[in-house]
């Protein structure tokens, strides 16, 4: 059985050595729920494994490049 979001959050926080109250965890869950559909859409983006490979620095390099 998949653990509930609050339980997952508590485990994740403990792993990161962070603490939050139950109210804050609920608030965080609500914020994540709002973000979730967009995040799922983002995860479905197909980014190339072969050239051209986008890396985290690509966007800032693109801005600075002459076009």
């Amino acid at each position, binding site marked *: 059985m998949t653990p509930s979001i609050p339980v997952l959050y508590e485990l994740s926080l403990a792993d990161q050595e962070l*603490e939050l109250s139950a109210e804050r965890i609920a608030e965080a869950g609500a*914020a994540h729920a709002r973000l979730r559909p967009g995040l799922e859409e*983002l995860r479905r983006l197909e980014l190339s494994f072969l050239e051209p490979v986008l890396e985290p620095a690509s966007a800032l390099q693109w801005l600075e490049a002459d076009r």
Partner: protein
Amino acid sequence: MSSVATRTDLADLAATELLAAYAAGETTPVEATQACLARFEQVEPAINAVLLPLAERALAQAEESTRRWRTGEARTLEGVPYGLKDIIATEGVPTTGGSALYRELVPAESAALAERLEAAGGILLAKLQTFEFACGGPDNRTFGIVRNPWDLARTTGGSSSGSGAAVAAAELPVAIGTDTGGSIRIPCAYCGINGIKATFGRVPRHGVMGLSWTMDHAGPMTRSTADTALVLGVVAGRDERDPTSSSKPVPDYAAAVERPATGMRVGRATGWIVERMHPEVAATYEASLAALGEAGATIVDVELPFSAASDAASWAIIFSEMLSLHRAHFPKLEERDAMGAMLLSAAPFVHASDYLLALRARNVFQQELEAAFEGLDAVATPANLTIAPLLEDMHCDLGDELVPWLEVATRTQVPFNLTGNPALILPAGLVDGLPVGLQLVGRPHDESTLFTLGAAFERVTDHHRRRPPLVSTGGSA
């Protein structure tokens, strides 16, 4: 004396107007600084935009500026009073971040942009209120709520709350704000003033408290396009202390203000970005596009590549970088203001893989936006989709529903933090007596085209000259 300086309260003049009056010998920086300080007395009890006034220091600087004008040594901003959002470091002057956590911080070094403003002859008159650490929400429990000069029951937006209110109430002609998801542009729109989030890297972030290092921008908030261009020209350019600052040369923005917009093509944004908008705000936006047409531009529709996915990418980056920067503050979460505590508490749940995916995907959105710019000089969007919300509930009125502020306030803004494109805000009219704005977005490093369009828009409209009732009723609106 004659002309503009004797007909008008000096506090109401724009920076370029003040400089012209100084050059003509019609007034002095000392008189202008005194006028701004008198405006503080008039409106501060109502709006609370100023976190730390610096009267004594400013008047001493104003004396020096007055001398320089007399002796022909005036610099670019000689004698222009300005304020800094209080996340921008100032040597020897407290810089709180709008937070009790840094109430006693006195930096040993100024931010690069603050050094540049001072070297150009500007007069630092005040440190200005901010949402705590640029994300804490309008109810700053350490330094109080900043109120919108157009309606004291409403927010200025944020996070550059004090900068927006102070410039709108003409306490200062110029303020510097910062913008991670709209924090320059939202207060500009809600308070009826001008401002720009330039291309990412155009203005160095050295000495500016960080929220999200790949999304943070700093820039001017003013009362005219000419002033915005003037001040951006002073603060822009590479600084080695900010490795992300751009090495590209800074153009002559003042020259761009003088060019005609005739023949320019502006895309009217369609799609996700404008899906939700109050009908009267939409009507005012359409009227502003018609005015841009009168100014010589051709308006054509363009679909922008933004969606819930680009929004999620933006927030995944902000959350992740915010937690990295503010990790040491996490145990003190309950000492933070409400919105900041909420955002920071949500941050640990963004996976590293999603953060990295978002960083990689932003180049996809950049390239898709670049393709949308084909045949266009700029893209227009509404600056705000609703009028400023009431402070008591911070909900935006879309006409048929009320929604939490963050659900719509950043929708036209944060996509351009993600792509890094420059975005200029222009006052575009009033709805129910409250300001709405027009946003013009440019290609990377093409702020000049935006200034040309903005100045042309201001030649056929007078929205940027409107002042809130607070100023004309002696601070008791």
